[in-house]
């Protein structure tokens, strides 16, 4: 389903020198597979997800999703791909503060060519247990509720691949497990492939496939090397 080959990605430092971040020879995720990538902060986890999502472009290599190499798509093509095939759960939720919970979920369908499905937005909010909070804006929701809205938004466009970047990092312990269960169950129900990034061992332990980032990205240093 997801196949990454020979991806290289560098950032330019203020002095103009390149700072290599990613060097991924090969990485694969099967259809409807759920896997987790673990690694310390600042080792390129978010950059890797952004390259997969087409938010950042790789310097070279290919990212194939269902056979489509998004590295060869134009920017507009990558936008369309994200709108129709991808769901993204952010560490900081990234809900739009001026929009209600319902509107934030609707936003996940706004940029697809398909017409927005209000019933699906309602169903997803019910699915995450927020049917009574649909008209609330993010500031009046708890942190756990905000992340549940973010999950519902990521699922709104029926994605083929869900990328979750530290989805429980800002959630209180009581809600962490609920969020993980919600994401995993939803992906299972809708046969969505899941790539989750975390540094929480208790989260990683729940997945069959756990990949340390250093096994994927040659430039990522193992945690023990960090002094």
């Amino acid at each position, binding site marked *: 389903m997801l196949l990454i080959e020979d991806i290289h990605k560098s950032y330019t430092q203020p002095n103009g020198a390149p700072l290599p971040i990613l060097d991924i020879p090969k990485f694969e995720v099967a259809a409807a597979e759920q896997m987790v990538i673990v690694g310390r902060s600042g080792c390129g986890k*978010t950059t890797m997800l952004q390259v997969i999502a087409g938010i950042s472009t790789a310097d070279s290599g290919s990212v194939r999703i269902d056979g489509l190499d998004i590295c060869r798509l134009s920017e507009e093509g990558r936008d369309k791909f994200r709108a129709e095939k991808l769901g*993204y759960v952010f560490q900081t939720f990234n809900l739009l503060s001026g929009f209600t919970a319902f509107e934030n979920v609707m936003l996940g369908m706004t940029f697809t060519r398909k017409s927005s499905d209000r019933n699906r937005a309602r169903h997803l909010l019910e699915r995450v247990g927020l049917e009574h909070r649909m008209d609330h804006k993010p500031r009046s929701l708890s942190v756990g509720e905000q992340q549940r809205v973010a999950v519902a938004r990521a699922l709104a466009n029926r994605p083929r691949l869900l990328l979750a970047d530290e989805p429980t990092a800002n959630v209180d312990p009581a809600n962490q497990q609920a969020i993980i269960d919600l994401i995993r169950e939803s992906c299972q129900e809708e046969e969505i492939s899941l790539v989750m990034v975390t540094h929480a061992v208790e989260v990683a332990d729940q997945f069959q496939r756990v990949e340390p980032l250093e096994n994927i990205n040659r430039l990522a240093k193992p945690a023990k090397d960090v002094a």
Partner: protein
Amino acid sequence: MSLWTIAWRNITQRGTASALTAFSMSLGVLLVTAVLSVHGLIAKSFMDNSTLGYDLIAGAKGGKLQLVLNTVFYLSEPVENLPYSFYQEFLTAEQQAAELKDMSVENRGKLEDGYYASDTSLAIPVCLGDYYKRFRVIGTLPKLFDDITLDYENNTGYDFSEGRNFEIWNEENGYFEAVVGSIVANETGLKIGDKIVATHGSSDENADVHDDSPFILVGILKSSGTPNDRAVFVNMEGFYLMADHSKPVEGDEEAVASENEAGVKAKRKPLPLKNREVTAILIKTASPFAPIAITNQVNEGNVAQVVQPIMEIFALFKVIVDPIKTVLLVLTIIICFVSGISILVSIYNSMSERKHDIAVMRALGASRKAVMGIVLLESILLSVGGGMLGWIGGHLMLGAFGPTIEAKTGVAIGFFDIAPSSKALDAYLPFGIMISTEFLIIPGLILLAIIVGFLPAYTAYKTDVANALNNS
């Protein structure tokens, strides 16, 4: 969810700033609406009234424009009068004899065709100077309403909604019959049979009142949208019989009217010709070349001047009114543009805090064009929304000041009156389409919104998604 909804949400999120920018735009559009409507409607009214049913106006030497304003539009003050004999120069001997007979005026000598009679098909004297409340009283002859053709296609003249034209003399009311325009009737509540008492030389209630000579209302004109709607027309013979309306002649009795038998109007003697004056003469010429001939001949003399009212009206607009309108319009458009700049500043200032929201939408699949479109739609909503409020406000203002404008200019303007089309614009439209200049406000606002919204929209377009997300 549409891009419009997203744009609207962004506007409401910055409620106070959005309301203030929309308000500044509404003030600009209010002024544009007022200028376009007032100028357009007054211009249309003046131009419409240029279908007068006559070609020339003869009056005392002096300002040409003043002669037109007080004769056609009943504005400004008449200056001097003309001798009645000058009016007779536009009549044939036969016409003079018929009029004198109708007026029961003595005929002292053999009548001859007037000097300009052969070039004239219709001449109507008017006497100005008195008022009924705030309305002008015009002394004239019944032929003003009987013989003038206003619409040559349908061969129609003045119509009466009630009653009939006044007569020179009849048993019932003598010389004292009157006809009023529709606005006079509506405003004063006058009904057929009511008495009309004029004040001398002023609309001031404290001015001398001609209570010795009340006129009886016998007809109400249909509304025509012309200054005639707000005028009182009285029989000229009766007008002459009012106190101080007799021209003093050396060696004559001081007040001819006082010779009349007070209280028995029907038997009062008409004013002798030597004591009569007219303020102006409305002339319909007999041939296409006659206006030039009459104008040249009269203007060469010392007695009177002749003007072509349509030429004067067009000159008035070309020389005075249009430039003033242009200056006002440019000023108000500058105000709108400044309001547009305030929209730019408002949206642009919000862009730094909105980069994150834009990046989130991009991450959800919004294209660069979509986020750019959302910002442009915000600009359009603020601009057009504020503009519509201003447009309504402008018309509310017109409704509120309509009576004052009407009193000053004679042009009726209300809430529902919109500015007429512009000839300059109509020339560019196909199929003879005519569009009110007010309807250009909306496309103008959209264009302005796109211009001022472009910079913040381009900032949205250029937003680096990864950077904005990583820095949040």
